[in-house]
């Protein structure tokens, strides 16, 4: 029996959805040029993932197994559309920068994966915790990548100048390959530190 603490802490490092399971890479590349967009994206995913986990967990004893996946997708898709609509109405500028990537949360494997792997067979309380843990795991990496890209690329962090004014922005960090490189380095450091996946 996994304890509540473990449910939340596991996805942060040892079973991180991005760096270990390598899911949700698309958005990790697309929205991490600035902290601001990455932060909003992290919030959007957290909202969708925790609520989809809770809803599916509540429905788990009623969902006919033959249409299980379709029901999960309907729930997730509805939640994503709601989040997208709200962003468009209240955070217009950011939602335009995020463009289709909020909508693409529907296809984000993390959400569907947690619904299938966890929420469908666990009570709502635990599913909520699992959703929260995985969202945090996703968010931490997203924010790390975005920090690296914004600092290296523009010399700012969350729009604040953190490097001298004459700092020359690194164009590679702004391009999508820059996100791959930073993500790769994060994975490298993580595996060196935790010593998991050590081959001789």
């Amino acid at each position, binding site marked *: 029996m996994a304890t509540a603490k473990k449910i939340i802490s596991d996805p942060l490092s040892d079973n991180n959805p991005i760096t270990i399971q390598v899911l949700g890479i698309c958005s990790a590349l697309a929205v991490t040029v600035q902290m601001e967009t990455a932060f909003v994206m992290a919030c959007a995913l957290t909202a969708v993932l925790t609520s989809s986990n809770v809803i599916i967990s509540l429905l788990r004893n009623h969902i006919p197994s033959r*249409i299980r996946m379709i029901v999960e997708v309907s*729930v997730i898709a509805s939640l994503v*559309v709601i989040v997208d609509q709200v962003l468009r*109405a209240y955070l217009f500028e950011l939602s335009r920068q995020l463009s289709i990537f909020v909508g693409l949360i529907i296809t984000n494997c993390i959400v569907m994966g947690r619904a299938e792997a966890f929420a469908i067979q666990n009570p709502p309380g635990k599913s909520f915790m699992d959703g929260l843990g995985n969202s945090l795991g996703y968010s931490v990496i997203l924010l790390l990548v975005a920090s690296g890209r914004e600092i290296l690329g523009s010399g700012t962090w969350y729009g604040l100048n953190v490097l001298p004014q004459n700092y020359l922005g690194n164009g590679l960090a702004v391009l999508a390959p820059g996100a791959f490189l930073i993500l790769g380095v994060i994975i490298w450091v993580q595996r060196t530190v935790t010593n998991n996946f050590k081959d001789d």
Partner: protein
Amino acid sequence: MQKADRQLITFALTICVTCSVLLSAIAAGLKERQERQVELDRKMNVLIAFGVDTRDAETGRRISAERVEQYFSEQIREVVLDAESGREIAPEDVDLVAIREKRQLPLFKWEEDGEVQKYAFPTSGQGLWSTIYGFLALERDLATIAGITFFRHGETPGLGGEVDRSWFQEQFVGKRLLDDDGAPVRFQVVKGGVENRYPDGNEHAVDGISGATITGDGVARFVTEDFRRYNKFFETIRGS
């Protein structure tokens, strides 16, 4: 029908109905606010082209929606022109698709004390990788550039992406789109710098971005072309 099947269908129907009702309600409820946001964004960019400081000097935040609306109700008047005839179109005939295809041309007038001081119109076209969108503002003579802004593009950061930087846009101010005989010129974005190509200066050209020749050529081309579209209408104003 089996009991299990009935349950399945009932469940599926319930989910479908719940989701669709919820989504329709939310979409309908937020629609007005979303449209206001799109409109506000467009107006904000027009203001930038007119040279209005849209960021508060102290806080660095954008000016409020009310302030934008105030500008638009007090000083800016918007008309839409027909590209063929150069005449104003009645508001009920304005068609967004036609505007996108540049068959109908929106024009913004900046009025002070009842007199038009500046004009602005949207301008857009192909850069290297993407379509660049912007607004161009003209002085009262309808030939001198009062300001330009490019607010959306997908050019290479550091190269073509420099079009959204102030050093590039500020160069346009004071340049002219008509020659001395009053004919529209081919505006130029000069590779290697205006000074090198034209040692005596050139009022129809700005410096290009190093390493982004194609983006620069694109900007020069669509600014020239869009100005020609409007010029038909401008001639009637200049004539009167």
